[in-house]
């Protein structure tokens, strides 16, 4: 059967006019009639055209319905993302282009590599045009177009504002403070800076610190505190806590007490006995634990007289009291909260943690000097620490703004490797190559540390306080 015959026989059948046996001859003549052959030809050609066109429409619709997800980019951050037919399994496409990338900045599509590369400069949601041709389409046919969404996040650094805090506030304090001081035969440098999260909304620095050196008997005191972000006047809580510590020790470590206490420490070192040890332990417990107790009391009194709750003053607190003896430096310390105190030997060969951290299961689950339960807890005594350091190197006290960014987790505080990195960082091994020269006659030390403190660390925008005794 030829094409015309086949077509016509099924056409007539669909019209319920099947060719009967007796009309077969007539049908054969009809089939070879040149006019009819021509007409069937035209119909079949047109049908094929329509089928092809419908196929293409379907394929285009398939591509249009397909979600082509391109990973988000960030302004100023180098970007590279695969964009290929293979990745999106677009097997019916013969050729394609991507347009509109330039709106996002210095980005381009490298066809040979199948990659979008470059560095975006503008943030927002951009519409890219994906122009494609199907294998089923002729080469000279126009491109089909599909819109693809492309998200560029802003550069987080550019979003932070630096709004000054309200200087007329009752509990206002300097946004940033850096000091250098000689503490007897040692030096102290401390920098305490308002975090970006506070600067962004013009709120206050919650961290604080205080220090003293008692010239007549050689004792030094350094205290660092971090006011809880959620507590109403914790910025004052941290200040009052540190000041109370300093005042307390100036009072307690008077020359008379210092003489007997120092003798006890010497006896314990030179002629140790259980009895001396017991007496010394009790003495340290009373002195160091007493300071924490006094601070709690002072904060409580302040809250009561000024119509605040004790929680309004919530602050973590770490402090050390130290003095040079002939056999080394005696360092006493106490800590509540998540701020570490550590000693690092000068040759960086040994690190000693002088406190343990209160860290909760969830972020922010810390304890404060205002937490009454800590004093009744059996663990209270373990917050007090006594160490003799033969070769004094560096004593660090820091708030979580430094610790979170540089040590991340508690376990890293035990690792010498992390401390070496930390010291290298202070020595200029950082993004901005800022070097802090921890030397006695460095008149620029305060500026160096203050600048170093502004390091960028994603997610860590809390207040930062770092005290270094060296």
């Amino acid at each position, binding site marked *: 059967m030829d094409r015309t015959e086949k077509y016509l026989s099924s056409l007539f059948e669909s019209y319920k006019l099947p060719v009967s046996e007796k009309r077969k001859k007539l049908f054969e003549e009809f089939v070879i009639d040149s006019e009819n052959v021509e007409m069937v030809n035209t119909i079949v050609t047109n049908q094929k055209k329509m089928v092809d066109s419908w196929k293409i429409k379907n394929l285009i619709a398939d591509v249009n319905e397909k979600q082509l997800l391109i990973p*988000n980019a960030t302004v100023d951050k180098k970007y590279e993302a695969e964009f290929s037919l293979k990745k999106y399994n677009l097997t019916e496409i013969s050729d394609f282009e991507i347009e509109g990338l330039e709106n996002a900045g210095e980005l381009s599509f490298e066809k040979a590599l199948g990659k979008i590369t470059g560095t975006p400069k503008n943030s927002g949601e951009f519409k890219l045009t994906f122009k494609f041709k199907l294998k089923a389409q002729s080469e000279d046919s126009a491109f089909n177009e599909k819109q693809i969404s492309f998200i560029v996040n802003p550069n987080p650094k550019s979003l932070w504002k630096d709004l000054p805090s309200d200087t007329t506030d009752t509990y206002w304090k300097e946004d940033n403070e850096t000091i250098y001081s000689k503490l007897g035969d040692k030096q102290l440098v401390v920098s305490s800076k308002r975090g970006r999260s506070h600067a962004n909304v013009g709120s206050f620095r919650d961290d604080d610190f205080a220090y003293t050196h008692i010239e007549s008997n050689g004792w030094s005191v350094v205290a660092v505190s971090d006011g809880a*972000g959620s507590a109403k006047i914790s910025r004052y809580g941290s200040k009052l806590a540190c000041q109370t510590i300093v005042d307390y020790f100036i009072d307690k470590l008077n020359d008379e007490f210092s003489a007997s206490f120092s003798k006890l420490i010497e006896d314990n070192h030179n002629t140790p006995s259980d009895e001396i040890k017991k007496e010394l332990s009790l003495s340290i417990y009373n002195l160091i634990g007493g300071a924490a107790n006094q601070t709690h009391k002072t904060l409580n009194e302040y809250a009561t007289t000024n119509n605040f709750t004790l929680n309004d003053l919530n602050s973590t607190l770490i402090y050390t009291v130290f003095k040079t003896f002939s056999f080394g430096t005696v360092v006493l310390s106490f800590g509540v909260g998540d701020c570490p105190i550590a000693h690092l030997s000068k040759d960086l060969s040994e690190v000693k943690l002088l406190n343990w951290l209160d860290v*909760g299961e969830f972020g922010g689950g810390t304890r404060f000097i205002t937490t009454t339960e800590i004093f009744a807890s059996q663990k209270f005594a373990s917050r007090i620490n006594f160490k003799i350091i033969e070769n004094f190197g560096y004593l660090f006290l820091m708030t979580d703004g430094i610790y*979170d960014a540089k040590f*991340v987790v508690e376990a890293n505080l035990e690792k010498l490797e992390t401390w070496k990195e930390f010291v290298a960082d202070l020595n200029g091994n950082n993004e901005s190559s800022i070097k802090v020269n921890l030397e006695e006659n460095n008149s620029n030390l305060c500026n160096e540390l203050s600048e170093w403190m502004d390091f960028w660390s994603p997610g860590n*925008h809390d207040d930062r306080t770092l005290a270094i005794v060296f």
Partner: protein
Amino acid sequence: MRRLPVYFLLDTSGSMYGEPIQALNNALSGMINTLRSDPQALDSLWLSIITFDKEVKQLMPLTELVNFQLPEIVCPQSGPTNMGEALMLLCKTVKQDMRKGTEDQKGDWKPLLFLMTDGSPSDLLQFKEAVPQVKAINFGAIIACAAGPKSKDEFLKEITTNVVHLDTADSLTLKSFFKWVSDTIENGNKSAGVTEELALPTPPSEVHLVI
């Protein structure tokens, strides 16, 4: 880096079909854009979307805001509101997602939950079973939103004390609701983990706090 995980449980049952689901899509997209311009949110926010109608789906697994792409939320023309089943899936998901603080890892901030419905649970039995499970999870805040005249506050009150009511689920109202949600999230970011109860910002006039 500490994450602030935020879960959205969204009602996509039949009654949301048409304008409401369109309004929801627009409002969500507006919220995401607002959050993207907050540096703190960009650093710490992770988002997840679970939708519920007759089917319960995790439309978007917990994803960092930086990498987040909002999928289009669609809903069937009719069908039940399986809120109970959705809460069950939520509990399972949160338990899998949560990073607890250990010696080597920073714990997440307490997660936040936003639940929005324009009706009431069809699967009451599952709902009753899910409520104590949701409460057992240490959410930093749960905010439940009853949108439109048919929504029932009383079921939501079983889950949280923070119930808000929207008179309609139209474009303007949803937009202002989700603006408020982003304010709440940004607030959560600031006080993350430290406070027991997240302080909610003052809602706009379209959002009524149900007491």
